[in-house]
């Protein structure tokens, strides 16, 4: 491609101007999170159908592979019989897959009933593309009653929080992202702290006093005090404890209970927020409630 000097200068100038625009946008979106969410909603609606399509293709190709594998080594004279076996095997594989999915969904529902939570079960369809932000995309959105800020859980424990919602898809910030925080307590000795993501596969339990007798292996659960997550849901277990001289707090590493690399279905808790709003109304002064009714 033959390009003149003036064109290159023009490109350099426009690049600089666009870089300045990017920095201004960054500063603006840092102060106004709604700006990023509005754009993300539009992009989700554009990209997520592709995610769903890819998901279906992968499932389909898995099924084709299973069928091919079953056919290897089949004798010619038994073709009819083997075809039947193949069909049955494929049905069985599909049945097993559905059975496993049913079990996972049942676990989600049981979790909901144990903690008296109302929720929407959703399937994970994609991850954040670059890996810098620990987030996933699920196939349920505002059309299913999901709103921003809702907690997301799994039968094994806490997953994260909904950060952006489009009509049919939601983006969930995982507990392991470094901007995530969950108010938590150690189950045995009730020491309270905040579980914060490290940006890797583990988390930290911060703000626990040096005197608190926590041990490696202790289970950490949500305290319910952050007003986001219901109380008593498992966050993880203590993997490492460090104490630095001259500090008042302990450095505690927590291994999340949920294996985020193998996450397939999650429960978006929709009832908890409604309950919180209901509680807030009940706590409001009687005069205010009377006014609202009037």
């Amino acid at each position: 491609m033959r390009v003149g000097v003036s064109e290159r200068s023009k490109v350099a100038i426009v690049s600089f101007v666009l870089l300045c625009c990017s920095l201004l946008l960054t500063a603006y979106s840092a102060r106004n999170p709604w700006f990023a969410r509005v754009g993300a909603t539009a992009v989700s609606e554009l990209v997520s159908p592709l995610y769903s399509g890819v998901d279906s293709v992968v499932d389909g190709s898995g099924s084709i592979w299973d069928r091919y594998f079953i056919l290897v080594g089949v004798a010619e004279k038994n073709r009819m019989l083997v075809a039947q076996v193949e069909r049955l095997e494929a049905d069985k594989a599909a049945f097993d897959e559905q059975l496993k999915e049913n079990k996972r969904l049942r676990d989600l529902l049981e979790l909901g009933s144990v903690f008296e939570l109302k929720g929407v079960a959703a399937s994970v369809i994609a991850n954040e593309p670059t890996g810098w932000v620990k987030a996933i995309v699920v196939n349920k959105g505002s059309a299913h009653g999901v709103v921003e800020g809702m907690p997301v859980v799994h039968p094994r424990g806490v997953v994260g929080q909904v950060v952006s919602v489009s009509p049919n898809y939601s983006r969930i910030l995982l507990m392991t992202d470094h901007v995530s925080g969950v108010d938590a307590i150690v189950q045995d000795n009730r020491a309270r702290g905040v579980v914060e993501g490290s940006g890797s596969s583990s988390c930290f339990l911060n703000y626990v006093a040096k005197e608190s007798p926590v041990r490696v292996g202790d289970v950490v659960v949500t305290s319910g005090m952050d007003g986001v997550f219901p109380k008593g849901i498992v966050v993880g277990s203590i993997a490492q404890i460090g104490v630095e001289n001259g500090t008042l707090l302990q450095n505690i590493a927590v291994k999340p209970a949920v294996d985020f690399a193998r996450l397939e279905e999650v429960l978006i808790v929709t009832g908890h927020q409604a309950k919180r709003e209901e509680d807030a109304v009940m706590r409001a002064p009687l005069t205010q409630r009377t006014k609202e009714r009037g």
Partner: protein
Amino acid sequence: MKKFVGLSLLGIVCCALQGSLLHIGLPVSLVPQLVVVLVVSLAFSEVSVFGCVMTFVLGLLMDFSSAMLVGPWAGALVVVYGVLAVLSHRLFIESGVAAMIITFLSVVAANVLFSLFGAEYPSMNWEYPKQVIGQALVTALFAPLGLSLLTRRARRNASHGIGRGTALSAV
């Protein structure tokens, strides 16, 4: 307009592949950054204001995929594009090794700039540099094929390939 829509769709497909298919069975540190390959190809085949604006749009697409901040990826990719576009007459992208080196450096530069613009550096741990290097290596391995596919049309139109710069062709 046709070109803009086509490249935007290609960017969306790249984002979707990065976010879904390439995550299956691969750890995050081995997922290639296809959008950066697209930007590198633009820097060599589309040295113009349009290429610059297109890169900015691709960056915004990446930013919106994260739903956290709008701008860091756009800024990082525009810088990578700008530098490559200005130097494109001195770089010989047709060589496979040169394409790999340029792509590797572009991925690393884009991620470093992203972390600076997005103020991600205070929270960085060793996992991020490892992840970036891994992604850059995988992207570089993919680059010769990806770039030859993306720039095939531009190369066909260009009849002066031999006279191009040789700064990296020696590699």
